[in-house]
């Protein structure tokens, strides 16, 4: 159990204590987006909002780049990142497409193709 590392399951990060420590500021900012006033404040001045929550440079750049894999590498947890994605108008299919390097249509087709099981 304690030996979980990012690379044990391909393409999968176990969000463990190390990730939770690394990503705390980023996830805390995303948690704040439960409040509509905070979503508005983020959209009004994104850089200032990130600075207020003390994001690391890596986290701040990943937010600026809307780069999901980099957000995860910076300790972001997908449940909190989903709140950021909501502000940016991205669905979980958009997130999946970006992370897998597919078009959104191709990602949706991939999901659908798994219905044809053995």
């Amino acid at each position, binding site marked *: *159990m*304690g030996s*979980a590392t990012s690379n*044990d*399951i*391909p*393409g*999968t*990060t*176990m*969000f*463990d*204590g190390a990730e*939770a420590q690394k990503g*705390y500021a980023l*996830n*805390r900012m*995303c*948690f704040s*987006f*439960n*409040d*509509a006033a905070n*979503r508005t404040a983020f959209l009004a001045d994104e850089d200032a909002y990130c600075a207020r929550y003390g994001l690391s440079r890596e986290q701040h750049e990943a937010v600026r780049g809307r780069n*999901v*894999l980099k957000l*995860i590498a910076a300790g972001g*947890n*997908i*449940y*909190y*990142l*989903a*709140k950021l*994605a*909501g*502000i940016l108008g991205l*669905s*979980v*299919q958009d*997130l*999946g497409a970006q*992370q*897998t390097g597919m078009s959104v249509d191709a*990602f949706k087709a*991939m*999901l*659908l193709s*798994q*219905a044809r*099981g*053995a």
Partner: protein
Amino acid sequence: MAKLVGGLAVSHVPAIGRAIADHKQQDPYWKPFFDGFGPAREWLAKVKPDAVVVLYNDHGLNFFLDKMPTFAIGAAPEYANADEGWGLPVLHPFKGDPALSWHIINSLVADEFDVTTCQEMLVDHAFCIPMELFWPDGFPPPAVPVAVNTVQHPLPSALRCYKLGKAIGRAIESWPEDKRVAVIATGGLSHQLDGERAGFINREFDMLCLDKLVNDPKALTGYSTKELVALSGSQGVEVLMWIAMAAAMTGRSKEISRNYHIPISNTASALLVMENQTAREPAMA
């Protein structure tokens, strides 16, 4: 004494809440999912639970990483839903059953489950959507929410969740009230939202889980958390709640109905209903 009438388990994908709000139940995309609820609602109309225990995972509405309980139990007269940040309509509050909550808390702690108790607790889509699905009239029975940490590893193991379910089943059946109680699990089945493996679904493993949940839930306790992530996806570990629900059954589990459909959003959606058949009260013919 209270009677545990059975268990239900269902996916809780946020998009389901959006589809309900937009009345899309009969759209071609949604129909195969929503049509599965007929037998579940018929069964609920027959067994008429007076209260439900709902095992779910909070996705960052009530709990943040500042304080992350492994098992948290609501002990409130009412549970409010709230803005989760992505625009789902906020639902009316849900009724609680503090007497049942405290009975379960007392019984669980006596059983060495040192749970976090919550006299205030916001409930997110993972709690609300299943209540909307099972009681579309908007009048679900009073509930006892049980939040399981499936966000931050280490998660409780499958075996621990199985034992929690057993303890919840014992607690319900030792409640000295003439009430009928059902257990609901939410989440799953296989899906993964994050990483290069996003979109991962495992139909074969889901089928195995559905069979074992009814016939031999203990068999699923042999999987480590990491094995569950590998087999069902980062968020597919929500099957832990299903294992606890199945374990709660105090008698023989009789499958009432199941539905399985790929995909709802990025998820293999599923519904499972089982009746708890005990010697104390033989099944109705």
